[in-house]
């Protein structure tokens, strides 16, 4: 299915031939799902925002994501997540996603998890507040089942307890 609304951005520009074929095939195979919609409850300038990155970011004081598991079974990806407290920087973390170049995010975490930029947005009054917790998971999950049924509900529960209004999902 070609999304007719996307005219300017080439969805496949930075992919090699094999990956481009895959992404197109997967896009075409996605079933049509029922709409889900939660309007922003208050103006952006009063909203609390959390970030979610698929770069597989873990703090040095947390267990790493399971790269060996993916090496043993390349069809598998670690479905867990890590909570990254507000104020986390590249000094505190490593990136574990095996399908992207991790050194950029390890040099400057804001390339994939813009926590400092979000703080600036709060200081400028663009958003209400930065959430106390942010989140990361491994972007390569061919079987998203366990991630969707176990991990995402944990993230949702924490965001709710911290009164988050909106989540910005940032890919790697």
């Amino acid at each position, binding site marked *: 299915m070609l999304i007719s609304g*996307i005219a300017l951005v080439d969805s496949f520009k930075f992919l090699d031939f094999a990956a481009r074929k895959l992404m197109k095939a997967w896009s075409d195979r996605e079933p049509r799902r029922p709409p889900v919609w*939660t309007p922003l409850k208050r103006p952006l300038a009063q909203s609390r925002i959390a970030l979610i990155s698929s770069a597989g970011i873990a703090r040095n004081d947390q267990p790493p994501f399971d790269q060996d598991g993916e090496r043993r079974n390349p069809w598998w990806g670690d479905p867990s997540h890590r909570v990254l407290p507000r104020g986390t920087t590249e000094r505190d973390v490593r990136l574990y996603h095996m399908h992207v170049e991790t050194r950029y995010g390890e040099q400057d975490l*804001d390339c994939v998890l813009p926590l400092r930029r979000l703080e600036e947005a709060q200081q400028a009054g663009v958003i209400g507040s930065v959430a106390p917790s942010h989140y990361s998971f491994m*972007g*390569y999950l061919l079987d998203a089942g366990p991630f969707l049924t176990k991990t995402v509900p944990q993230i949702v529960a924490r*965001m709710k307890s911290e009164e988050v209004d909106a989540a910005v999902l940032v890919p790697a």
Partner: protein
Amino acid sequence: MGLASREIEAAGISTICLSMIPELTAATGAPRVAAIEYPFSRSMGMVGDAAGQAAVLRAVLDALATAGSYGSVIELPFQWPEPRRKAMGALPQPPITVLCKRKPWLYFKLLSGEIPLPKQTGATR
């Protein structure tokens, strides 16, 4: 990413997905997508480019605030400053790529979405 955003949205928290593959993200049924033509590994901008990253974040937040209905795709007006080849660089070879190079027929399984269950691949987990 898109499937996760649907679960979060369904639980009552608004979401927006920044995406470099907006066709795929939109096809999964993400409620709001901000499309960007940036390379992988640096979706917010170049290392050290605080102003550029801030501009992308502001545009994503704007899209979050203004997207009016389910399935909105907002195309962000940013251009990556490097040529395609240089931007792509030498990406790592993940285990699935190495496996498919050794056994090319597995690439077609991947293409058709036939993901072997753990038992069939002899994995330990």
